[in-house]
């Protein structure tokens, strides 16, 4: 009797643990169109080290689904499901991609309808020669307007499904502990040095060095607010921040939802070794923001908008009157304020910056650009172009553009862009991949999209960050913010960060 019981348990265990084997249908009707799959992974170029591109077949007539991925080399991968959710075996996927690096994989989707199997027109996955950096950091937050509650910084291992929590704020509302986290940034694709800001309670900027963390307060009466958008010098322990006086307002009847408007911004240089901060640019005739070091550390790129009217106000009126009028001016000119990309040479020995020079004169074309990011080889500037303003993550007109610094040509990355928001972006350390935030899936929630950046300077069709459950992007009620690629995993523990944030007052940077 016991033996029978053990046998039943053994069989049940095996049935539960083994994946069902699927066979390709032998007879089927061929369809002329490709399968409607979610996320859209059709005809994309992917890195060989990416996790399986699991997807959902959207076919209400289908009862059973079988998918075959066949490369030029190796065994085909066959997966299936009864609800359209195709979740592939990770080992088989890795083997398939490894064997087909630089080649194409053909994907055939079969669905069983009432009158038999159908086979949709195949699509392809092109496996690039170059890998992507394996770690992607991001912030998860509701695509909210003003308020925040539970948010956190996370790091996803792109080669599998592992997600590591870098830091989460307090999970339960608490007047004394509520705080926001933003603007995480790394030095040169390494997690050896990273930083992020804490706003509201426990505020400051957390600097991480290896597995140690320290809170710094970058504030001074001469600084507009505190450090905001950062860029870490590629080698030295120096960070350039913009400091922005930011406000926001909400549309009543528009395709857009929010306008985030700066009412002043400057650039700061923070020396993390000496805890010293100084102004790089401190002007009223222009607003400077989104700084970015060139990969060689010899020049600094940033966005700038001319505001001669504000300078005139400040020159002719007492400060409080000028501030009051300028606040109204900014909100009244929200759709005509335009940013260009400029550059200043930097002398590392003297720590001095040269005169600003125009790099992308977008305002002359009635466009506005933001978030310049320089490719690791220094040849391309990847930026976001929209119709106005600088906070393009809320502008449907925003697209990814590049400027080729070798021939001064500027062009949109048409294959990678969508009709919706395509904004905040980052390069991989080998310059062959870009990751950016896009609202293309539902117009509301940003999801990281990955695109191959070819040697010819053109991007390929972008694909959404793969998830184990293809429904993840539907069910997740948060946006992915500020995607940043790194070559290694974050070393500092969440506990260390929590201790630093909660239990230290923070060292005040000296203003020089």
């Amino acid at each position, binding site marked *: 009797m016991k033996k029978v019981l053990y046998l039943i348990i053994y069989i049940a265990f095996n049935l539960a643990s083994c994946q069902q084997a699927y066979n390709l249908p032998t007879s089927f009707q061929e369809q002329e169109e490709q399968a409607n799959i979610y996320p859209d992974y059709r005809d994309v170029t992917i890195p060989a080290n990416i996790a399986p591109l699991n997807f959902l077949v959207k076919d209400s007539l289908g009862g059973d689904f079988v998918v075959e991925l066949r490369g030029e080399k190796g065994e085909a991968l066959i997966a299936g499901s009864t609800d359209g959710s195709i979740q592939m075996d990770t080992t088989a996927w890795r083997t398939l991609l490894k064997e087909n690096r630089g080649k194409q994989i053909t994907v055939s989707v079969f669905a069983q309808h009432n009158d038999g199997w159908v086979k949709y027109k195949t699509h392809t996955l092109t496996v690039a020669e170059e890998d992507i950096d394996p770690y992607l950091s991001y912030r998860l937050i509701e695509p909210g307007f*003003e308020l*925040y*509650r539970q948010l956190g910084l996370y790091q996803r291992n792109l080669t599998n499904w592992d997600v590591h929590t870098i830091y989460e704020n307090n999970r339960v*509302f608490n007047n004394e502990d509520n705080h926001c986290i933003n603007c995480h940034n790394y030095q040169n694709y390494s997690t050896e040095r990273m930083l992020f800001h804490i*706003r509201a309670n426990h505020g400051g900027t957390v600097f991480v060095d290896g597995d140690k963390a320290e809170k710094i307060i970058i504030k001074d009466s001469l600084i507009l607010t505190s450090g905001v958008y950062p860029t870490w010098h590629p080698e030295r322990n120096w960070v350039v921040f913009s400091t922005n006086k930011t406000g926001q307002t*909400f549309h*009543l*009847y528009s395709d857009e939802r929010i306008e985030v408007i700066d009412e002043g911004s400057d650039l700061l240089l923070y020396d993390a070794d000496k805890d010293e901060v100084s102004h790089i640019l401190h002007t009223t005739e222009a607003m400077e923001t989104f700084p970015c070091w060139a990969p060689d550390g010899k020049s600094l790129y940033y966005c700038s908008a001319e505001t001669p009217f504000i300078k005139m106000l400040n020159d002719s009126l007492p400060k409080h009157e000028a501030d009051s009028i300028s606040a109204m001016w900014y909100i009244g000119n929200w759709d005509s304020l335009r940013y260009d990309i400029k550059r200043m040479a930097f002398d590392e020995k003297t720590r001095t910056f040269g005169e600003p020079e125009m790099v992308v004169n977008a305002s002359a074309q009635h466009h506005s650009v933001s978030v310049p990011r320089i490719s690791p080889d220094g040849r391309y500037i990847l930026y976001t172009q929209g119709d106005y303003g600088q906070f393009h993550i809320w502008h449907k007109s925003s697209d990814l553009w590049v400027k080729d610094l070798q021939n001064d040509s500027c062009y949109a990355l048409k294959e990678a862009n969508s009709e919706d928001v395509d904004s905040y972006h980052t390069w991989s350390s080998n310059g062959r991949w870009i990751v950016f935030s896009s609202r293309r899936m539902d117009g509301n929630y940003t999801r990281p999209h990955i695109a191959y950046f070819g040697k010819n300077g053109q991007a390929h069709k972008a694909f959404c960050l793969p998830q184990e459950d293809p429904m993840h992007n*539907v*069910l997740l009620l948060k946006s992915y913010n500020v995607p940043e690629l790194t070559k290694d995993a974050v070393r500092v523990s969440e506990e260390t960060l929590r201790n630093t944030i909660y239990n230290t007052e923070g060292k005040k940077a000296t203003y020089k």
Partner: protein
Amino acid sequence: MSVKKNQKNSVRSTGNKPSAPKHINEANGTKQRPNSSTSPKKTLLNRLPLLPIPIVSFLLIWWWAGIWQGDVFRMIRENSFFAFDQLLMQYETCKPYGMLWSAGRGLLMLFRYPILGGALLSLMLTLSCWLLGYAMRLSARWRWIQWLPLCIYTGIITYQGLNNYYEAETGMTLGIPTAILSILIVWGIIIRSFSKKDSPAMVRLPKDETRKDNYLQLAVVALIGVLPAVVFGNVYRSYVRPIASMQISVMEQDWNKVIKTAEENAEESYRPLAAQYAMALVQTGEIGDRLFNIRLDYDTLYIKGLNGEAHNALNMYQMECDFHAGLLQTAYHHAMESMAMEGPTLRNLKMLCKTCILRSEWEAAEKYLTILDRVPFEGDFVEKYRAMLHDVEAVNNDPEFAVVRELEPIHDNFENRFIQPVFLGYTSALGEGRSMSALKNSLMVNIYTKTMPQFLMRCQALVGQNPPINIGQAMALMSSKYPEVQKSFPNLSYYIPELQNFLNETNQYIQARPGITEEEKAQLLKMGITPSGKDTLISSENRALHARELFPRYKGYYPYYYFFGNLKATKKKDTKESSNAGVN
């Protein structure tokens, strides 16, 4: 004689003296006291039948939770969320006791049908109490103690009122009873395993209880558990059930029921109640005729925000008011803020979904519908709105949406440029409307906020038309100051005699008058108005003192509202803004 003596002992045994004879039940070893079946004396108590108290308790609490408080529990559910999906529940499960609160939220879903939810809650409470008695090995005499937790529960739920679901952890409502029941089950099992103690009867009539024991338990359940909850609720939380009922009716688009409930509670003056009423009137097109049928003075609610401080309850109706004012983006904004602060709830998800459908944001609407489809008992909502996806005609033909469509702005603007809350600020400042309804609503906001210059400017658009009653009354009132109004609207003469009568009758209450008594001073303070001086009762104070007594007579009459209504608003500003804001 001996029988009589025995009876005497039996009666005494229900008192505190421990000398009462006790009998040992040889079968199970439990102590039993003689019940009245052995006593022939026919006192009133002895004539009553023994009752199975657990069954009675179950029925009473079922009535209380399923019918009396049914709408309140339903609204707790609507401000909650549960799905069998780890990702969707993450907002909840990452909190301390998150799993417990999630379980509570799961059970709360049964309150989609309050009778069903009430049965479950009643079963849980009754079972918990019964198990408590068993676990504590309470003798029949002390068994009334086991029902005290039930009384505490009904007391807390009643005392909390709207706080049960206003920015609250809704998982606690059933989560705590679940935890207690689970502990008691384990405790009961342990006791049963070791002591072999028999459990007292649950369904059968109790064999070990005297009638006094039996009715003492009944008294505890009925007179401490249910009756005070009902009485306290009716006296000190009288607004809770009407507001919850109206919120449900708004969700179900039963506008007539909203109006009926509001007008039945016309003297109850609370902002959430007035807001639901106004939404219903907008939907039925009667706002110009009936808005002032309820008192609009806004008494203080017992309500707390996330930080535990007194709150103005704006979040209870803000997104719905935005929506019914045609401000879809603002409704989306506030629904999203609600989701950020409280996590997903059925209420904010439904609002997000509806605004996306009206804005033809099909993918986003599909996302919210997919999520709602995973919530138990939300199939009807999902089916109704999924049918509208990609079908603009179906959207425009929906009765609720059709009214909202007519009120949508024509031009873009920024929320921040209007007086808050935006649904009032924008509507009162409407420059150009999509329909006559939009104009009439705007005029109504003007007369509600008593911004008469703006009202008179907009009135020009109604020349040649028969204005709604309240607008006509307001025009007539203004015509005494601005005679040209009557030239533009000759029909106003219809309102003039009534106005003259009103002014004659109320003139003494409208004017300032010398002298203020201590009694009047106290009354004003009670109303939230700080008297301005000792010797003179200024005009608004004089009006405030008489507003309430005049209301039944002038209910629905705009000049009454103009002079006597909503006086506190001009004295005190009670809007509280969150400091937890930033750029995201």
